[in-house]
C-alpha cells in the first residue's frame, strides 16, 4: 500500500482511480498512522498531476488547421 513513490502516473484515468482507492482507504479509518501519511503524500501527488492535466485543457482553446500544419511540416527542413 505504501510503495507509491516510484509508481509512474500513467494517465488521468489511472490517477483518478488510484485517488478514489486512497480516499476510500482513508475513509475506512483502518489505515495506521504511517500508512495514512504515505497515502496522503501519494494522494497529494496524484491531485497535483490531475490538476496539471486539467489546467492543460483549461487555459484556452487552441485551434489549428490541418492544411496549414501539413504545409508547415513540409516546409520545415528535416532534422
Amino acid at each position, binding site marked *: 500500500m505504501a510503495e507509491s513513490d516510484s509508481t509512474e502516473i500513467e494517465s488521468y484515468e489511472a490517477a483518478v482511480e488510484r485517488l478514489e482507492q486512497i480516499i476510500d482507504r482513508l475513509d475506512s479509518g483502518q489505515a495506521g498512522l504511517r500508512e495514512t501519511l504515505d497515502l496522503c503524500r501519494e494522494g497529494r501527488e496524484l491531485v497535483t498531476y490531475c490538476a496539471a492535466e*486539467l489546467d492543460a485543457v*483549461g487555459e484556452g*482553446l487552441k485551434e489549428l488547421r490541418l492544411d496549414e500544419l501539413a504545409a508547415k511540416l513540409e516546409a520545415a527542413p528535416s532534422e
Partner: protein
Amino acid sequence: MGRYARTLREELRKRARVQLIGEVTGLRHTPKQTYFELRDADGAVPCTIWANELANLRLPDGALRDGAEFVASGGPDYFVGSPTSSPGFSFRVTHLRLAGEGDLLARLEALRKQLRAEGLFEPQKRLSRPRLPRTIGVVTAESGAARRDLLAGLRRRGWAGTIVWGFAPVQDRRAAPAIGAAIRRLAELPELEAIVVARGGGSLADLWAFCDETLCRTVALLRVPVISAVGHERDSTLLDDVAAVACSTPTHAAEAAVPLDCVVARADLQRGAAALRRAGEGAVRTRSRHLVSLARGPARALRRERTALNQKTREIRAAGERGLAERRSFQWRIALVVLDRAARRAAGAEASSRREALRRAEVAFRAHEPQHTLERGYTLAEDAAGAPVTSAAAARELDRISLRFADGRVGFHRD
C-alpha cells in the same frame, strides 16, 4: 474486321438486361447522346443514353450530375466504329432513375454485411479512448453547424485543449476521398488522441459519402479512435458501424471525444484534495491527542503519588510532634510525682494549705520552665559555664557563646 465487330455487338446484345446502381461520374452531354460512368468501390461501367430517351425520362433539373447515385436499366452494347469514329463498349441505358432510399439501403446493407463478415466493425471499438485528451482532430465542413455545435459542446464540458481542424467537403463525390485523406493525415499527428467526423443531418443520399467502402475500411484499421457524428438520430451510415463510437449529435460527439466533464472533474478534484487534507491532519491530530493523554498519564500518577507522600509526611510529622508532646508530658508527670511526694512528706497541721502552696509553685514552675519557652521558638544564650547571657553587652564580652534551642545546643566562637 467489321464483321467480327458486328458479331461481337450481337453477342453482347443477347445478354440479359440488368439494373445497375452506382455513382455517376464523368458526365458528358452531346447533341445525340449522354455519356457517363456508373461506379462503386469495386469498379465502373461506361454508360450511354440517347439524348431523346433521357429527355423522355423527365428527370428533375440537375438530378443527373456527378456524384449522384443512379439506377440504370439496360444491357451491354458495342459501337463498331466508323471511318471517322473509334469503336467502343458501353452499357446502353434505356431507363435511368435517381437511386431511391431503398436502393441505397439495399446497397448499404450488402456493404455492411461484407464489412461485418470481415470483422471490420471491431478494431476501432477495442481502442482505448483517453478520458481527458489534450488534442483532438475534427473532420467536418469549414462552414457548418456541426463545427459550431461541437465547439459549444466542448465548451460546456469546460474543455479548452487543442483542436486540429481537417476541413473537407461532406457531400458529393469528392467528399469520401477528401474525408479519408483528412482522417489519415490527422492520424499521423502523434499528439492526436481522437478524431471526430461530424456532419449535420440529411437524406441517405446526402450522407452517402459516409457509407463509402474505401473510407470505412480506412477508418476501421486506424489506430486512433474515430468518433462518428454524422446525421441525426435516425440516420445510420457505414462509418457509424466501423467507428469507435457513433453519436447522434455534435453535442454527443463532444462528450465522446472528451468523456471527462472538466467542470465536474475540477470540483471533484478539489473535494478529493480536501478529503486528503482532512485525513492527513485528522490522523495526526487524533494520534497527537492520544499521545498527549498518554504523556499525561505518568504526570498524573506522579502527582497522585506526591500527594500521598505529602499526606504521609504530614501524618508522620504530626505523629512525631504528638510523640514529643507525650514524652514531655511524661517528664512533667514524673516531676509532679516528685513534688507530690515532697508534699506528702511536708504533711502536717497546715498540710492542706502547704499542698495548695505547692500547687501554685508547680504552676509557677511550669510557667518558668526554660524548656517550655524554648519549645515556643525562643533561644537561650549561655556562656561556657552554662550561665545565661542576658544582654548584648554581656555577649560582646565573651569568646564563646552557645545557643540553646529546644532540641539542643549550638556553640559559637568569636572570630
